[in-house]
């Protein structure tokens, strides 16, 4: 069942078309990822879905409600975790959660119970009474996520949930997102971490320059590009020194191409399955021993690069910045 349905959604800031008529839907209980570089339109899209920005065109339906006309009704059932930790620095973790609960009309006893429960769930009980500004980055992130859950929303919107935090906190937050899915929540998250999208998301949309260029599960996205089989061989000799070996390999195994990596290793690339045994026999007959043969599977990163044409190192730089 589709719980979020976005049709031909557009957003323009003056002459700049930030979102150019995107369409996608999210099924109940799935984690849907918007993956793209900075400025791709991820945050603009989320902001339109949660009511912080008005679309220039298109439709948004969330849980059967028109999210453009009835945004206040929609806001009751959604939780938002922004890319910045925007809680109140002077207030304690506990008070922040209670305040966020009160915005949804939750009574005092109930909001205190929920706040304590979430602080426990997120490993922040010991810091409950400390001002938010004294928290570490990872703790701040966790409390910001807890604040988005305080009213028990059906759908969660996470904007760059792990940007700018340490490895351990990133791991905790990723586990936490997966546990939220297990609780039956629907999650839309934006990220520019390819491995995060691959690990967490059920389906991913590649968004570039305000357009969704591809949507699918990781498996579907992998299949969508031309399939290549790759086997990396670790050799006992320097293949560059053995003249004619490479040519003979390519002559005998017509579909295969040999890419020499270093002195003692090469990659065999083919459009079809690679006949490993005859290749090994041929190399053996040439006096080249093979110590290791390893299949190399294409990564989501390869798929992303092929579909979007974006240099992944650009995304890597964004992670650092």
């Amino acid at each position, binding site marked *: 069942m589709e719980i979020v349905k976005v049709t031909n959604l557009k957003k323009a800031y003056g002459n700049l078309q930030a979102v150019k008529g995107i369409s996608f839907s999210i099924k109940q209980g799935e984690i849907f990822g918007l993956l793209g570089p900075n400025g791709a339109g991820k945050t603009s899209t989320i902001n339109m879905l949660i009511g912080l920005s008005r679309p220039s065109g298109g439709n948004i339906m969330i849980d059967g409600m028109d999210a453009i006309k009835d945004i*206040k009704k929609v*806001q009751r059932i959604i939780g938002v975790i922004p890319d910045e930790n925007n809680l109140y620095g002077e207030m304690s973790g506990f008070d922040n959660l209670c305040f966020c609960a009160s915005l949804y009309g939750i009574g005092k006893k109930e909001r205190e119970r929920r706040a304590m429960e979430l602080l426990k769930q997120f490993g922040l009980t010991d810091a409950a009474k400390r001002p938010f500004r004294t928290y570490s980055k990872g703790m701040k992130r966790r409390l910001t996520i807890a*604040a988005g859950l305080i009213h028990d929303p059906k759908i969660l919107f996470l904007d760059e949930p792990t940007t700018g935090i340490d490895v351990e906190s990133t791991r905790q937050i990723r586990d936490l997102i997966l546990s939220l899915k297990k609780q039956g929540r629907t999650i839309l998250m934006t990220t520019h971490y390819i491995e995060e999208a691959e690990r967490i998301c059920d389906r991913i949309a590649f968004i570039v320059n305000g357009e969704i260029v591809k949507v699918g599960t990781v498996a579907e996205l992998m299949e969508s590009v031309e399939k290549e089989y790759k086997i990396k061989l670790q050799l006992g000799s320097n293949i560059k020194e053995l003249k004619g070996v490479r040519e003979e390999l390519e002559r005998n195994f017509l579909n295969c191409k040999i890419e020499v990596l270093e002195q003692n290793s090469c990659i065999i690339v083919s459009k079809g399955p690679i006949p490993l045994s005859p290749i090994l026999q041929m190399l053996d007959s040439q006096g080249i021993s093979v110590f290791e043969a390893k299949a190399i599977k294409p990564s989501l990163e390869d798929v992303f690069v092929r579909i979007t044409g974006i240099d992944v190192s650009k995304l890597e730089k964004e992670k650092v910045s």
Partner: protein
Amino acid sequence: METLIAFWNILKKDIKNYYLKPPNISWGIIFPLSWTLMQLIRSPGDVGIVELLPGLMAMSILFGTTSMLAVTITFEKRSKSFDRLLLAPISISILVSAKILGAILFGIVNAFVPVIFAAFLVDLRGVSWGIALVAVVLIAITSALLGLLVAVSVREVFEAQTLSNFFRFPMLFLCGLFIPIDKLPAILKPISFCLPLTYGADMLNSAIIHSSSFNILLSFAIMLLFIIVLFYLCKRNIEKKWIL
């Protein structure tokens, strides 16, 4: 009931986080006190404390309320914590009302600081407290709404302060508190009639020194009109500028 919980907690949070902070409490006391002393030192023989009260009360409200609201909202907007309020399932009108109520209460308390000092020095039994309270509340509401208008128009805290002064000082000198409106140059009089503080100050004058330029009911009606227009403008500007 749910809306009331949200409303009350936004108000409570603002009072606790901003208005009850020691610097603001001291501002609320020191500012009106220093104005009082300044006026007395400047003209000890000519001006009585009672005559000074309407001006001091109006100034205390105007400066306290506009500063606090413009600064706190700009600060919340910069830190993006204001987005939390915009994402809450409450209407913009409720949100605006909750945000300005803290500033209004702060303004009202500020207004009565000079009154408390004056009560020790002069007889205030002749003051019409009912009218004075209504005037104080109306000035506080219009000032808070002006502060909110400023907050919506700027991005940085220092810009909020600069823009606030841009209208606060002219308003103070043109509202008839220090220079009677009939003594203002002809070119400035129309401006004076367009300022909410002119009518609020006139109500205060009427309540405290029993002298006024306008009918008190007319001033009351005009102040209400200002409140409605300013509230509408604030709501419209928030929707337009903050929900992009």
